[in-house]
């Protein structure tokens, strides 16, 4: 198709980068926010604004809650298509009980899986989950949406688009393209080392944008590559579900071997049995970890085949001190508390996989590294955004000559995925503070309303971007950029103000108390407002001198990729 390798890579980088760049903006931005997902949750769910807690006592606090738990109506409805015939109302055969916490969680997530006798896939279990206060066992209402961990975070890997799992596939493909864009970008960038520190903001928009694109792409190249790559590895089971399709027989055979090898029963015995003290098992697990020089807290507690003679309890360590997502799992016989198995040290391949997934999923405790991750993510956003801007700048005169509207479309989409996306996120936070704590009868659940607000705000931002894009067809700046920057400069502080008004947690209070989840959020919102205001002012100045700049630009117009 092309005369040489470099040209083919340039074509690929430009066109695939353009199309998938819009998806990647969302992935990188919400991925960056996800580093502090639990802190965003604290801001969105004020009742959860207390300090992180360790895993509470199973025997005294968790067990009574689990015993009373049943799947909700929504859980049952969602499972219905996967069962033959009508669904039961009560579920008494428990496949699993689980509790999960990290060093950043004040609240505890617990879940239970129940056997469904008429399930189409005989192994499929019906799951339900709850959020509880580990200090007293109070259950949080279903509809306080954890905007960080249950909306922004899943958005970055699935676009919250669950129909046919299409969201996962789109993000997966975008990730592959990210890798391709990085490699092709390096191939295209002739002065890789010479221009490592080069950014010339005073030159033409085209030159300075390309400089910034190269800078943010190159300095964080290992980061960008590793995150796209490890993201794919984490979801390998979705993208190449070979073990559950072509090699399913091999997989099932292995599962039986493994159950025999590990001594952890695959199925229920059908004989009822009590559950011994899980707290004693946890203590024993902690003792064994300490003995191995790996002292730590419990991150994940799981019971399997609950109430059955084959039941077992698995205790996993919270991985705060290393990158690798290890568990050092210790498994106990549920009815007696005897140790059935200590997970052996990881094999070489297991270690590599744990490192790769741990690098991405960040369970470690290291505040500087987390902030550096956010920096990397935002650098990725700048790289993509400057890519769009460069695309438009380079071609808009050409499109004007052809009388085409393409530059307008790309530019409007760029506004939508840069400032528009920020406005949608901030809008959701504002909605979160404005909605009453308990919504009136007949309204949709509070969390659902917040989600509508997010998408609606984004759509409005997009409409605005398109409606205002006329000047781009005359090779001038789209005023929507300035409008939306100004909007952000107003909305972000409004969110901070609303937090103060509705919860009393203003910045002076949160900083003096050292409650950083909320202080950090408020400060980040204020910084966003400041940067947006500076950007708006800079762009306005630019529009005013545009006619002068146009003459200079013609000289720099044919900037080669270098």
């Amino acid at each position, binding site marked *: 198709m092309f005369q040489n390798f470099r040209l083919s890579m340039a074509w690929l980088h430009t066109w695939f980068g353009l199309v998938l760049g819009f998806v990647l903006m969302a992935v990188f931005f919400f991925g960056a926010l996800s580093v502090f997902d639990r802190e965003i949750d604290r801001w969105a769910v004020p009742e959860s604004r207390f300090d992180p807690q360790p895993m509470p006592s199973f025997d005294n606090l968790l067990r009574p809650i689990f015993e009373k738990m049943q799947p909700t109506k929504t859980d049952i409805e969602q499972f219905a298509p996967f069962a033959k015939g009508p669904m039961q109302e009560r579920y008494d055969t428990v496949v699993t009980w689980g509790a999960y916490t990290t060093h950043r969680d004040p609240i505890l997530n617990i879940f239970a899986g129940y056997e469904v006798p008429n399930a189409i896939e005989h192994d499929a279990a019906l799951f339900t989950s709850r959020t509880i206060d580990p200090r007293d066992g109070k259950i949080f209402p279903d509809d306080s949406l954890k905007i960080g961990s249950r909306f922004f975070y899943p958005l970055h890997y699935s676009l919250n688009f669950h129909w046919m799992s299409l969201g996962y596939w789109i993000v997966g493909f975008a990730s592959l393209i990210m890798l391709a864009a990085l490699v092709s970008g390096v191939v295209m960038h002739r002065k890789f080392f*010479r221009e*490592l*520190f*080069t*950014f*010339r*903001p005073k030159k033409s928009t085209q030159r300075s944008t390309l400089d910034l694109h190269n*800078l*943010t792409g190159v*300095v*964080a190249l*290992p*980061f960008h590559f590793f995150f796209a790559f490890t993201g794919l590895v984490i979801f390998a089971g979705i993208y190449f579900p070979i073990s559950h399709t072509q090699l399913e027989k091999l997989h099932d055979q292995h599962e039986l071997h493994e159950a025999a090898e590990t001594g952890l029963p695959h199925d229920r015995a059908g004989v009822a049995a009590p559950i011994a003290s899980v707290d004693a098992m946890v203590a024993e697990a902690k003792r064994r970890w300490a003995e191995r020089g790996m002292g730590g807290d419990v991150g994940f507690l799981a019971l399997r085949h609950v109430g059955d003679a084959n039941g077992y309890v698995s205790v996993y360590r919270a991985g705060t*001190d*290393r*990158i*690798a997502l290890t568990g050092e799992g210790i498994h106990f016989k549920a009815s007696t508390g005897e140790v059935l198995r200590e997970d052996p040290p990881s094999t070489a391949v297991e270690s590599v996989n744990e*490192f790769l997934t741990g*690098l991405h999923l960040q369970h*470690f405790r*290291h505040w*500087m*590294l987390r902030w*550096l*991750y956010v*920096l*990397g993510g935002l*650098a990725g956003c700048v790289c993509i955004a400057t890519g769009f801007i460069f695309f438009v700048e380079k071609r808009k005169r050409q499109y004007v000559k052809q009388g085409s509207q393409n530059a307008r479309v790309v530019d409007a989409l760029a506004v939508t995925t840069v400032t528009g996306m920020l406005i949608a996120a901030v809008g959701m936070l504002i909605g979160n503070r404005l909605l009453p704590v308990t919504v009136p009868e007949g309204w949709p659940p509070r969390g659902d309303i917040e989600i509508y607000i997010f998408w609606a705000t984004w759509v409005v931002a997009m409409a605005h971007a398109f409606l205002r894009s006329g000047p781009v067809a005359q090779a001038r700046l789209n005023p929507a950029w300035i409008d939306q920057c100004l909007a952000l400069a107003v909305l972000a502080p409004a969110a901070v103000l609303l937090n103060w008004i509705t919860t009393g947690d203003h910045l002076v209070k949160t900083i003096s108390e050292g409650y950083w989840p909320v202080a950090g959020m408020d400060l980040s919102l204020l910084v966003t407002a400041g940067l947006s205001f500076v950007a708006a002012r800079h762009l306005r100045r630019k529009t005013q001198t545009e006619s002068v700049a146009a003459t200079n630009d013609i000289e720099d117009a044919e900037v080669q990729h270098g």
Partner: protein
Amino acid sequence: MDNLLLTAAAVLCVSGMAWLALAMDVHWKQVNKNPQSAQTVKVLRMLGYAALFVSLVCCLAVDHATMASLVWIMLLAGSALSVALTLSWRPRLLRLFALPFASA
């Protein structure tokens, strides 16, 4: 102590990147009118790499090896970015890194 070491690692990384940037003619000229000698370039590069190396050692003193390497790589990215942005907007701030070589 950990925070001190990590701060030192960050400062060393930025310094290292600053020295490496100044070893390049185009950036040296942004900070200093006099042309640089070949000797200056060599020393700047050595200083730069040395600072980056010591930064890595500081990281390793704080965390488990795999975590330390990751922290260091991310510090490299952040430092390169800061130095580049400083060169774009306030290149004079990097004068202190060129000071010992100003007369060269």
